[in-house]
Structures are given as structure tokens and as C-alpha cells.
């Protein structure tokens, strides 16, 4: 009983509960058919949302107005960079991954440079940056039809006993992120800045450096995500990251992280990502049309956020 109560108090439980309900509804519809396969597919797809979701979570936790809108463009460019550097050869996989990581980190650093030098709201800085990145990507990735190296494509699709290896690695990564958030100076500083940037500054937190690191981290995660997506879907694409703008913000908020900043939740990102992916699978299984699927996805997001309610604190 105590366990139940302490669990119910944790915001991330709800996102997992939602994922479970959606999963049960789907297998009830199919009569149990494909229950395991659905979990495997959901885990494989959720990975990509979780990786950018964690980056976005750190950014959003910095406080109101902090959000990284350049992620989709970043993912698109990094996927092209990774494929070009790897050039279809297994020996270049690590170099390609590092190149994508560096590309993403550079984008993140530029984002913060714009925010800091021009003192503009992060939304506009990352938005302007994303316009420019998009153009670079269109110009750089034109006619790019390089397949990922076979070893890399196999790695991103690799499963052991129905569990995607990438998902296991991502779980390890998120555990690391949770420790960084709750137990390390960096994470505590991010939380402090989100709660009250002035108080954090007075308390000696190097606000500029932490914000720089956070935007760079978000960019780097976007870069890695782009490379992995290109491996999983067997090819880079300008539009490959498009859906991750809304998805990255949605998983952060549904997962129990406060949009007002200063309160973050790592497990919730996983729950929310699984919830969103399973929701799409469920609607596809029900055989609804694209229009109805979008409509229901939207209504469910609004419904979930309404039920979870906002914070009572005065902003």
C-alpha cells in the first residue's frame, strides 16, 4: 500500500501506466496476437525519441523560454554527415559517429553563442539557427544516397531475444543522465538555474558555462540521434528529424518535467516515448485513417496534460 502511494506520487508512473493501458488495449483488439513484437518495435522506435528527449529535457529544465527548436534540422544534417563520413564502409563507423556527434555539438554551441551574444530568447535563437542548418543540410545532402555501412545498419537493428540492443544501451545512457541530473554538480546546477537563475548565480553557479554545456549536450545528442536514425532507416534524409521537434518536447512534458523549469524527470521520458510510440501502433492496428490518427493523438496529448494538471505555484 505504501509502495502504491509512493509510486502514485511520482509523475513518471503515469506515463508508463498510459503506455501499459495503450498496449493492453491493442493486444485486446488483436486477441493477443503480436503482443511481444509490438513491445520490440516500440522499444526500437522509442529509443530515438528518448535520446533527443533527454537533451531537450535538460534544456527545458533551464527555465521558461529555454527550448531547442533546432533539433530536427540538427538531426537531418548529422544524419547526412554520418553517412558521408562512413561512406558505406564498416571501418569508418566510429569516425562517422564521432563526426555526427561533433556536428551536433557544434550546432548546440552555436545556439548558445547566439543566445549569449545577441541576448535573444532561446526559442528565436534556435529557430534562426535551424533555418540556416536546414539550408546547409539541403545544400550538403543534395542527392545523397549513401547507404549506411552494413555493420552499422545491422547494429542499429540488432536484437537479442526480442530486445533491441540499442534500447538496452539507451537505458544505460538514461540511467547515466539521471545520475548526472540528481547526483552531479552539473545536473544540480541545471535544476538550480531552472528554479531561480538569479539565486543560482548568487550562490556561485557558473550560469553561463552550465547553459553552454546544456545546449551543447542537446546538440550532441541530436547529432548522435541523426546518425542512429540514418542507420536504422538505412539512409540519410533532410526530413528524417522533422517529427522529433514535437516529439522531443511532448515526451519531456508528458514525462513529468516542468515546463517552467527546475524540475526534471528522466524515467518519465522513457514512459512518455513508449506511450507515444505505442499509441501510434494502437491507432494503426485499429486501422484508422491518417486524419483520425493525428486527431486522436492530439486529443490524447491534450487530455493527458489536462488530467495531469499544471503546477499550482505562481509563475
Amino acid at each position, binding site marked *: 500500500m505504501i509502495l502504491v502511494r509512493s509510486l502514485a506520487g511520482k509523475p513518471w508512473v503515469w506515463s508508463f501506466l498510459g503506455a501499459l493501458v495503450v498496449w493492453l488495449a491493442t493486444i485486446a483488439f488483436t486477441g493477443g496476437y503480436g503482443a511481444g513484437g509490438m513491445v520490440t518495435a516500440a522499444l526500437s522506435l522509442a529509443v530515438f525519441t528518448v535520446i533527443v528527449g533527454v537533451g531537450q529535457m535538460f534544456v527545458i529544465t533551464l527555465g521558461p523560454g529555454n527550448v531547442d527548436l533546432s533539433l530536427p534540422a540538427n538531426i537531418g544534417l548529422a544524419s547526412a554527415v554520418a553517412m558521408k563520413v562512413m561512406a558505406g564502409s564498416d571501418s569508418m563507423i566510429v569516425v562517422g559517429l564521432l563526426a555526427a556527434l561533433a556536428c551536433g555539438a557544434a550546432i548546440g554551441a552555436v545556439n548558445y553563442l547566439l543566445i549569449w551574444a*545577441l541576448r535573444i530568447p532561446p*526559442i528565436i535563437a534556435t529557430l534562426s539557427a535551424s533555418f540556416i542548418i536546414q539550408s546547409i543540410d539541403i545544400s550538403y545532402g543534395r542527392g545523397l544516397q549513401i547507404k549506411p555501412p552494413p555493420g552499422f545498419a545491422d547494429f542499429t537493428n540488432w536484437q537479442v531475444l526480442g530486445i533491441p540492443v540499442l534500447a538496452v544501451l539507451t537505458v544505460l545512457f538514461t540511467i547515466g543522465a539521471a545520475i548526472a541530473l540528481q547526483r552531479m554538480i552539473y545536473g544540480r546546477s541545471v535544476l538550480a538555474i531552472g528554479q531561480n537563475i538569479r539565486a543560482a548565480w548568487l550562490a556561485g553557479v557558473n550560469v553561463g558555462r552550465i547553459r553552454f554545456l546544456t545546449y551543447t549536450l542537446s546538440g550532441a545528442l541530436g547529432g548522435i540521434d541523426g546518425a542512429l536514425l540514418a542507420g536504422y532507416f538505412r539512409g540519410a534524409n533532410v526530413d528524417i528529424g522533422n517529427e522529433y521537434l514535437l516529439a522531443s518536447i511532448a515526451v519531456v512534458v508528458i514525462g513529468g518535467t516542468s515546463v517552467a523549469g527546475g524540475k526534471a524527470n528522466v524515467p518519465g521520458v522513457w514512459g512518455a516515448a513508449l506511450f507515444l510510440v505505442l499509441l501510434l501502433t494502437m491507432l494503426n492496428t485499429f486501422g484508422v485513417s491518417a486524419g*483520425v490518427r493525428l486527431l486522436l493523438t492530439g486529443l490524447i496529448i491534450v487530455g493527458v496534460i489536462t488530467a495531469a494538471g499544471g503546477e499550482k505555484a505562481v509563475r
Partner: protein
Amino acid sequence: MRPEMTAASLEATARSSAERGALARARLLRGLLPALSLALVLLAIAWLNPRAISYFGFSLMLNLAIPIALATIAQMFVISGNELDLSIGTFVGFVGCVTATWLKDAPLIGVAILLGSIGVYALLGALIHLRNLPSIVVTLGMSFVWQGLAILVLPKPGGKAPDWLLAIMSFKPPFVPFPIIAALLIGLVVHFGLMRTSYGVILRGSGGNPAALKRAGWSLLRTKIVLFALAGLFGVLSGMALIGITTSADANIGNGYTLLSIAGVILGGGEFVGGRVSPIGAVIGALTLALAASPLLTFMHIPPDWQVAANGAILIIVLAARVLISRRER
């Protein structure tokens, strides 16, 4: 934010009158910045292609300025209440689809749907206020809803704009191209409503200092509903204007408008918090973006690949200029 401002104003009173003069000039410059950036873009166009500066050239370049300006005004209302609408683009697309189908075939039902959608916007305002929800997430969810509805209304690109709408949008007044007249009209009407009426002050105050307004006895629920309903109204106008120009619709037609509208408000001197917005600035910002995104960039030796980047670069340059001016303001 606020303590700094009081400190700044105290400092200002202590300063000598000469310094105050300089401060006033810097403020004036800041207020004129949106217009200056528009002038700069125009100069660049005139320099690169003098023939573009003509009645025909402007009609072509500013083709999409009216719907962008209307969507920017919609976003501005939401921003003046310290919220953000990430669904305005798909909403414009939804309105476009309804305009090209129901509004033409069954005008009464079409009008009812559009009025209903404004009602949905008002309800969203109420929901966001009552449950204290983050508007970013709610409107994010709504962006899926509008897109889904748009696809349901018009599964394949097509439909046709009502004739009266086509007639309005292809209106060719003498001397001054229609988009410029329309933009002026939109800017002035909203400026009068939001900046010069007493309820306009209350609406902006709900973003500037909600606690003070509440203590003065004003309903914050009502201001939020009014702001969102106005956003819905201008979103509807934007979708209709867009279809009047493109003549047919597509469920994805408005998707770019979410980011364009936010950029327009900020270019026009608006700020994300504090109810500091400027309707005329927003319209000028929208015009600047419309010019920057116009097909004429192709004729200016800017390859199509880099046209999106031109938008980003203009945003960054204008904001950098604003920082330079703000430094002098202190």
C-alpha cells in the same frame, strides 16, 4: 526582470537631461528598428534588382504577406498573454481546407465550422487558465488535432476558393499594391484595438502583471479567453486569405506559419513575456519575412538551397542590431 526595470528607471531620473535625451533617442531607434529592418531588406532588393521595386514587383513579392501578417497578429495576441501558440500553422491549414470545401459548397455550414473553431480557441484559453497548463504543450497537442481535421476535411490537395474570396484577394487598387494597403489596415485596426482602447490595456496587462490585474478586480480567465478567441479569429482570417491567393488547399499548406508567426512577432519588437508587443511592428515583421521568403530571392542570385538560410540570417541580423541599440539604452 522587474526589479531591474525599477532600478533602471530610478537611475534614469538621476541622470542629467542630456543623457535622458540620448536615452530617448535610443528608445526611438529601438521602436523604429522593425521599420528600419524592412527598409534595409527593401534597399537590398532595390540594389540587387531595381525592377523589383514596382507595382507589379511588390504585388508579386508580397503575395503571401497578408496571410503571414494575419497569422503573426494571431500569434501576437497569444504572446501578449505570456503564452505561445504552436498550433497556429496547422490551424491556418485547417481553416484553408474548410474554406476550399465547405465554405464554397455549403457556406452556412462553412461559417458555422469556422465560428466553432474560434470557439475551440476560446475554450483552450479557458482550459489553459483554469488548469494552469503550459500553453506550449496544449497547443502542441492541438497542432495534431487541427492537422488531423484538415486531412479529414480534404484528404487530397484540391478544393476551390469561393469566388467572392478570390475577387477580394485579387483586388488591384491604383498606385499602391493591395498587400501593402491590407497590411497597413490590419496593423492600424489592431493597433487601435490593443494599444488605444482601455480593454486593450487590460489584455496587455494580463501578460505584464497578472497579479496586479487580478487584485484590481479583473478576470484573468476572461482576458485569456478573449486573447485566444482573437488569435482564433485572426487565424481564420489568415487561412481564408491564404486560400484566396492559392485558390486551392492542401492539409499541409499552413505548416510553416507557426514558426513564421513567432519570428514575425519578435522581429516586430515583441517580447515573450511581459505583454510587450507591437501590432504595427508585428505586421512590419511579417512583411520583412514575406519579402525574405519571396520567390524573388531566386532572381537575386540566391540559390533556392539558401533561401531558408536567408530567413534565419535576417532574423539574426535584426536581433543583433537590437542588442547594439539596447546597449546604448542603458
